[in-house]
């Protein structure tokens, strides 16, 4: 049996790196252990090179149609790998100084990203499920890494219990879908659903169960309540990973399963996801207004952002090619923008928190004088999360409105108006942090901050990216226009 090695080259690169990192952790002692971080970075860069090569080679179908590398998948892979690189850079000093379990951390991080790379390419329920678990299992452990901190244990337990429950529900749904359609291939399921099977209540229920499983991953209401506690209790780079990469992986899986396998029954799940979108963004924003802890604020803000990204799902209709493709593109573009600005916000939070342990919004008072770079960057990221002009956040929201406008429906307009109202609400809490940063005096004993070089580089790159894409959104939007699902064998 011939294996298409190029198609899985990024995954193989990360796997080899992860195994090497673990071996290096066993071989190295003391401060030399810090070498695992550059090792992981080299592996990530190699994987990025492979992914870029694949961009030109797409679409490729491997493993008899289980695994498809199309432009949609490569775009996601590049998003994940870029996020991984940023997270590695902001983790370096955090973990080296805390003398955490460095080798284990980087191994688990890389393993989680292997699962993420698999997710957008999986065209089979089994592969999809294994990919999802490969993202989840290392994450459960990483959240609980600060073992002496009860908050960390609580965070891990909550995350684990809800994660396992949703995985069980999803697996049950998948088994029913398989039992009914007789295949685990997404294309085959779509064919069966397009026929008579599409009207069986059990099957529609199972479809909803599978979608619910992804709802946990993207922290959509009502499966969101683990997110704030988990983000707050986990090591901050892990929180960044969960908020950005893990959520993007959930969306990648949801997009493939919704628009490839369950597309013929879109009129069943689209309204449900649309209502969830409205609930998610409204609840996330209203609760975010109450927060005093910056990480919890970012957690609720990321719930709200997930709500925005669910809007295009609410637009989907069976057979409506144009609408569905526009919806997929809008989600993808929003995710890229979201990754840039949210990783940036977490990076700044790490820079402030690292030595001082500060994380309440009050502690950001006078950040403008303590570290002008971090203060400026945080301002840009928060404005962008709010969707201010000249930042990528505006174009991300615009992309969703654009998807709504492809074919105007009443429900689409309702969702769009919720998006607009929520964006206004969101500005209240983002601006509150910005006011604290620039207009409140710093506490007398607050030290000047000296972020690590790697962290500063990440922050600057992401800040420039936020503004550059805010001025020239075409840099990302145009290449992703070609994004479509290639058909598996």
């Amino acid at each position, binding site marked *: 049996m011939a294996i298409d090695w190029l198609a899985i080259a990024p995954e193989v690169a990360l796997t080899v790196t992860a195994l090497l990192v673990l071996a290096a952790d066993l071989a190295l002692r003391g401060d030399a252990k810090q070498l695992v971080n550059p090792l992981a970075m080299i592996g990530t860069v190699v994987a990025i090179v492979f992914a870029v090569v694949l961009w030109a080679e797409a679409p490729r179908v491997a493993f008899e149609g289980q695994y498809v590398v199309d432009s949609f998948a490569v775009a996601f892979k590049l998003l994940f790998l870029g996020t991984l690189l940023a997270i590695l850079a902001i983790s370096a000093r955090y973990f080296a100084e805390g003398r955490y379990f460095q080798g284990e951390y980087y191994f688990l991080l890389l393993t989680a990203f292997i699962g993420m790379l698999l997710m957008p390419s999986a065209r089979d329920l089994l592969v999809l499920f294994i990919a999802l678990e490969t993202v989840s299992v290392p994450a459960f452990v990483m959240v609980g890494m600060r*073992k002496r901190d009860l908050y960390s244990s609580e965070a891990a337990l909550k995350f684990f219990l809800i994660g396992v429950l949703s995985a069980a529900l999803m697996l049950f749904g998948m088994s029913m879908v398989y039992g009914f359609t007789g295949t685990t291939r997404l294309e085959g399921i779509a064919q069966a659903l397009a026929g008579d099977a599409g009207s*069986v209540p059990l099957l529609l229920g199972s479809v909803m169960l599978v979608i619910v499983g992804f709802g946990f991953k993207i922290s959509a209401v009502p499966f969101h309540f683990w997110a704030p506690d988990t983000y*707050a209790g986990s090591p901050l780079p892990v929180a960044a990973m969960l908020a950005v990469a893990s959520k993007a992986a959930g969306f990648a899986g949801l997009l493939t399963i919704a628009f490839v396998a369950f597309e013929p029954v879109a009129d069943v799940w689209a309204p449900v996801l649309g209502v969830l979108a409205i609930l998610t963004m409204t609840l996330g924003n209203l609760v975010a207004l109450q927060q*005093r802890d910056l990480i919890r604020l970012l957690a609720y803000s990321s719930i709200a952002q997930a709500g925005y990204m669910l809007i295009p799902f609410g637009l989907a209709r069976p057979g409506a090619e144009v609408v569905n493709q526009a919806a997929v593109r809008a989600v993808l573009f929003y995710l890229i923008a979201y990754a840039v600005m949210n990783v940036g916000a977490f990076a700044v939070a790490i820079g402030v928190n690292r030595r001082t342990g500060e994380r309440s*919004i009050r502690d950001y008072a006078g950040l403008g004088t303590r570290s002008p770079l971090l203060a400026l960057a945080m301002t840009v990221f928060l404005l962008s999360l709010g969707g201010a002009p000249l930042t990528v956040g505006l174009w991300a929201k615009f992309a969703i409105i654009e998807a709504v406008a492809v074919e105007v429906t009443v429900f689409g307009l309702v969702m769009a108006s919720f998006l607009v109202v929520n964006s206004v609400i969101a500005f209240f809490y983002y601006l509150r942090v910005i006011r604290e940063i620039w207009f409140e005096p710093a506490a007398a004993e607050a030290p000047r901050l000296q972020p690590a070089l790697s962290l500063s580089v990440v922050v600057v790159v992401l800040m420039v990216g936020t503004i550059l894409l805010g001025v020239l959104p075409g840099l990302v939007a145009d290449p992703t226009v070609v994004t479509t699902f290639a058909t598996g064998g």
Partner: protein
Amino acid sequence: MTAHDLVFVIVGLVTAVSAILVVTSRHLMHAALYLALTLTGIGGVFLVLGAGFIALVQVVVYVGAVAVLFLFGLMLTRAPIGREALDSQNRGLGLAVAGALFVLLAALIIPAFGGESTAEVTGPTIEAIGIAIFADWVLPFEVLSMLLLAALIGAILLARREAGESGTEAEVTRIEMGEALADEPDRHEAVGTSAPAGELGAGGGR
């Protein structure tokens, strides 16, 4: 009713009764052992359905390993495990949820699969499963090894007592809660300082 059906009903009854005993048993250890019996019963169901290999997996993994892990877990966590009051006072709620779920699933599954014609069951042979794993499912199979490795490392990481090397910790989190909880600083204090400060410092010696 054929003999096959009879065997199925017997195995199913054993499974169901032991499952009920898991939740009604007042002794935690007995509950865990009933769980092992339930899992064995499920293995029996697989066997009756002609899936011999899956039955084997069920017994080897769930009864042999997971149930044992369960017992170890019980003995680890609650030091004196006796006949305690295990009743969480939620019997009514539990019964209602379980009953509703049963009715819902029955209402969905029976019309969906009830019309299928019955046939003598023949499960796949173990050779067919072996070929399928390596010919059709080699990608998820290899990914699974990474998943298992991650679970292994994770379990050791969380369970082992750290000695020197990579065992030390950063500061304990201080989380600012919303308005409601801000009035009870005591709770934060209690949680935040639960890790003895001396211990934190001592570990960082290396």
